């Protein structure tokens, strides 16, 4: 099967003109939140942002998993990575994220054994090759990556590999969207929902957002045509005063999602309250181990260690930026004391972080 060209210039031009005529039907600013960091990135990468009508603002939400990981969790990971006989296996994105006093990158330079991996599966190899060491993993990410961590733990259990320990920092996207709406500060007219998360969860999970909060939701993919069609569908609902869940990414997302992945998660984890950077504690927004898997919990490694007291990053506006209240440029540190080379908040580090993306594309054409 060959897929159509999702970056066709003609299709993009047609969609942009449709978006423009829809937005003219509104006499106010329309604010659409893209919940996913990859959406934020691709709006810039494809050069689409400059082509939007003036009264359409596309703002980034809490959709960068690294960015929403709070200092308290980062400090746990950094402390555990520096223990003797511990090998930390991590995705590259986590390396430079600053905790209170250090980062994984810095601990590596000081001698900690920290290895960048691309798939949690690699942990099984490392753990079998180094049976006398503890192999540490931080499960970071939304429902997109949570099944991988669950599968890793289930497989380690099956193979009786007991030297793998995992921090469960995974988060669920829907409770965060609801928390934003309950706070009511970010004046969102509609959500462009993440295609990747929705592959796993299905699109029906957004129905409460449409039904209870009356905010239209459109699940969108990541190619230029996906993004523009997603915006078009949202704008059409907004100007027509409707609030439904629509699925632009039908080639990958079905109403119920990927049941096997959901089962994988439910077999190993249960829901728990989780703490988010900027958003605070959100009920049922994270995961914990089911009792039979508790031996994999990395928190046991650091139960005896005192973690650094959390500092207040007064100037850093991560919280407001993650909530879509401020844009990165409105933070007093942005591109002054906070840059990708010396980041103060994680939003400036991760490739999906809105500050890092706005920094990279900060110069106007």
């Amino acid at each position, binding site marked *: 099967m060959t897929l159509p060209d999702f970056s066709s210039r003609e299709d*993009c031009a047609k969609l942009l003109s449709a978006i423009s005529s829809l937005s003219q039907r509104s006499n106010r600013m329309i604010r659409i939140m893209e919940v996913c960091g990859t959406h934020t990135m691709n709006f810039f990468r*494809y*050069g689409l942002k400059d082509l939007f009508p003036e009264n359409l603002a596309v703002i980034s939400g809490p959709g960068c998993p690294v960015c929403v990981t709070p200092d308290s969790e980062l400090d746990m990971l950094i402390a555990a990575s520096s223990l003797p006989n511990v090998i930390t296996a991590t995705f*590259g994105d986590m390396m430079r994220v600053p905790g209170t006093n250090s980062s994984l990158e810095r601990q590596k330079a000081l001698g900690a054994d920290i290895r960048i*991996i*691309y*798939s949690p599966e*690699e942990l099984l190899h490392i753990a079998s090759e180094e049976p006398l060491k503890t192999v540490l993993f931080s499960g970071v990410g939304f429902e997109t990556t949570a099944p991988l961590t669950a599968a890793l733990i289930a497989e380690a259990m099956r193979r009786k590999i007991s030297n793998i320990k995992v921090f469960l920092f995974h988060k669920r996207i829907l409770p965060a969207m609801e928390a934003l709406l309950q706070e009511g500060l970010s004046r969102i007219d509609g959500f462009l929902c993440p295609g990747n998360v929705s592959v796993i969860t299905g699109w029906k999970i957004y129905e409460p957002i449409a039904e209870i909060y009356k905010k239209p939701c459109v699940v969108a993919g990541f190619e230029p045509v996906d993004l523009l069609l997603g915006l078009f569908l949202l704008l059409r609902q907004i100007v027509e005063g409707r609030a439904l869940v629509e699925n632009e990414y039908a080639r990958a997302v079905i109403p119920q999602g990927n049941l096997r992945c959901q089962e994988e998660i439910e077999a190993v984890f249960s829901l728990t309250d989780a703490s988010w950077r900027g958003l605070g504690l959100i009920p049922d927004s994270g995961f914990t181990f089911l009792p039979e898997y508790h031996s994999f919990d990395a928190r046991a490694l650091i139960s005896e260690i005192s973690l650094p007291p959390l500092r207040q990053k007064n100037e850093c506006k991560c919280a407001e930026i993650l909530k879509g209240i401020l844009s990165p440029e409105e933070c007093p540190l942005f591109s002054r004391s906070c840059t*990708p080379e010396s980041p103060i908040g994680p939003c400036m580090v991760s490739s999906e972080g809105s500050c890092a993306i706005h920094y990279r594309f900060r110069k106007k*054409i």
Partner: protein
Amino acid sequence: MKEREEKILLAHGAGGELSRKILHRLVLRYFHSPSLALLSDSGLLSLQEGMLAYTTDSYVINPIFFPGGDIGKLSICGTINDLAVSGAIPKALTFACIVEEGMDIGDLEKIFASAAKEAELAKAEIVAGDFKVVEKGAADSLFITTSGIGLLHPLASLGYRKISSGDLIILTGTLGDHSAAITLSRGNFSIRTEIKSDCASLSLLLLPCFDLCGSSIHSMRDLTRGGLATTLCELSDSSERTFLIEEEDIPIKKSVATICDLFGYDPLYLANEGKAVIICDSNDASSLLSFLQSQPLGKDARIIGRVLSDKESRVVMRTKSGGKRLIEMLQGDQLPRIC
């Protein structure tokens, strides 16, 4: 005894009997240079009059064997390419190794053989070298430093000051093959692809370009770390010109594009080891392009953009979807130890 000899020992680098043996087994067996065969302290070269280019580079790539090449081939290609894009005909090379104790001698033989083959292909003589062994853990298998001397092509007159409005930007082939191959050979992925590193000496492709239209070629750069984006930014910076490139015209293999999607890489920033950009006068661009496309190493060459009249240093890309994007230098998110 035999078995012990198959691994590198500290004594192989100590200057005694084992050093002499390894020198014969590796250096003299593979590198056929009259000057090197004398085993004196310096290699002697006789060069005719003219301007010389002289360059050096170190290679720390991990893994040392990868699809499309190995650290030996890479260490010769890299230095040959630095000479070639300076308009210099490679003449002499040096080859210095730092080897980790315990390395397999059979692997070293393969690496020396492929370095020798690559140097011969580029008609460059390896005139001097060095072989040091360090304790296990003090290096990762093998590090190589090469240097090269080349004679400037009589018709080459490169300089960023010559880059001017209306010049065309030619890319000699597909982007990202090297980085994609290295990424895949490092991890334990169940991805089966045909992707190979593009590691190649470009002297035989690039030097004839000067015969064809020497003074029309205003700049030439190979696209290693930082990729096409970083190179164009540097050229735009030093020439104080705006470059406009067309995403649609930039050749990228489908398999490489897929790997980029999977790993979140931007192909514009990926390292290449056998690709160059040429900025040349528009009058000669099409004949240059036809020549490049007639060669195996340049068959995918394309004109990807042009130099605008604006005297502001910036690189703009018109995206496939019709938007415009400012291209900036790489900002520290590249794969480490790629070359």
